[in-house]
């Protein structure tokens, strides 16, 4: 499998260079929303959806800005598209599942400031992916994000039942869990051939 093939790009973004555990993008929602499996999974799906839209839009933005020679505006254009997509997702969730809307709370609008999404747009540009490769990359990144947030939520639900020393409760424990998960994901690095 060549490094340019769509399957490899997908796999690379999903597990080998997992956005959360290997590249540290989108840590805030991972620490904030991963308390329960029930909210972690929808959060992951919403983020993956925004990622996909942002990636397609970023591809279009690059063409338009490149045509006019306005590349220095790309950052502002990306973030504007992401912010409006998040608004759209927020309205959809509010309409179809008010209960979920309340559970996600402040973290839903905060998808805008999730570095993983802007990261997808920036990395696909710097890697020079074509359209199909960008789509594969964003889908892989989304799948990787869902994987990471669901794994974290599962672990944290177990830790809730355990007797943790009082100094380590909360954020420190979550970070240690993330560290161990990240160690596990380093095992996938061999898939990439170095």
């Amino acid at each position, binding site marked *: 499998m060549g490094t340019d093939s769509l399957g490899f790009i997908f796999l690379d973004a999903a597990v080998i260079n997992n956005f959360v555990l290997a590249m540290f993008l989108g840590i805030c929602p991972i620490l904030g929303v991963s308390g329960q499996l029930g909210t972690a999974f929808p959060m992951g799906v919403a983020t993956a959806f925004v990622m996909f839209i942002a990636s397609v839009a970023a591809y279009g933005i690059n063409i338009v800005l490149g045509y006019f020679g306005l590349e220095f505006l790309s950052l502002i254009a990306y*973030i504007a598209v992401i912010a409006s997509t998040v608004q759209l997702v927020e309205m959809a969730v509010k309409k179809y599942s008010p209960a979920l809307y309340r559970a996600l709370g402040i973290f839903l609008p905060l998808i805008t400031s999730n570095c993983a999404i802007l990261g997808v747009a920036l990395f696909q540009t710097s890697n020079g992916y074509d359209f199909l490769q960008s789509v594969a990359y964003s889908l892989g990144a989304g799948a990787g994000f869902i994987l990471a947030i669901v794994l974290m939520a599962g672990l944290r639900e177990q830790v809730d039942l355990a007797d943790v020393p009082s100094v380590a409760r909360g954020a420190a424990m979550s*970070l240690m869990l993330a*560290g161990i998960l990240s160690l596990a994901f380093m095992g996938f690095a061999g898939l990439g051939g170095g």
Partner: protein
Amino acid sequence: MAAEREPISMDTFLRGIWRENPVFVMLLGMCPVLAVTNTTANALAMGLATTFVLLCSMALISVLRDLIPKEVRIASFIVIIATFVTIVDYAIQAISLELYDALGAFIQLIVVNCMILGRAEAFASRQPLLKTLVNSLGVGLGFTLALLCLGSVRELLGAGELLGVPVLGEAFQPWVVMLLPPGGFFVLAGWLLLFAWIKERRDHRAKTRKEATADGH
């Protein structure tokens, strides 16, 4: 809120460094904190870049705070922040290409640093210019200090060096894992544990002292 009319004091500045440290206390802006702290130099550059963006954008937001309509404030904040990040991005590219390659996309990702947006929402959009500047400087320094705390420990344990200078000698076997992603998580967890432990001990001591005075009566 009453706090809005408080005069500028040392506390406005110090609050961001210690009691409301963005990284260790508020747990905001974690992504760059973990990603670029594998060497002390990177950590310092990232901290200074973020501080610059924070200062400039907070100043502008504070000046424009009465002109920005409430409904579109988040979008306006983000556009202002993105403008300054673009400036920093091009500036670092011009100053040191080596540093630019080391930090990579994380300079542009300052835009989505929740710490900056959080400060804009909670402070700059409500406070006058001077006070905002003082507070932003404090928060920026707090952020830089936190990055240095992580960066120095990771570089020391991971490579036996500090700012590129070997300090631990030949015999030291570097812990490569500290430079890799898991190391970032573990070192940050370690610092949080340390602070939690200090706080717990202080609380404990205050409690025993109170009990002691109560017994004396």
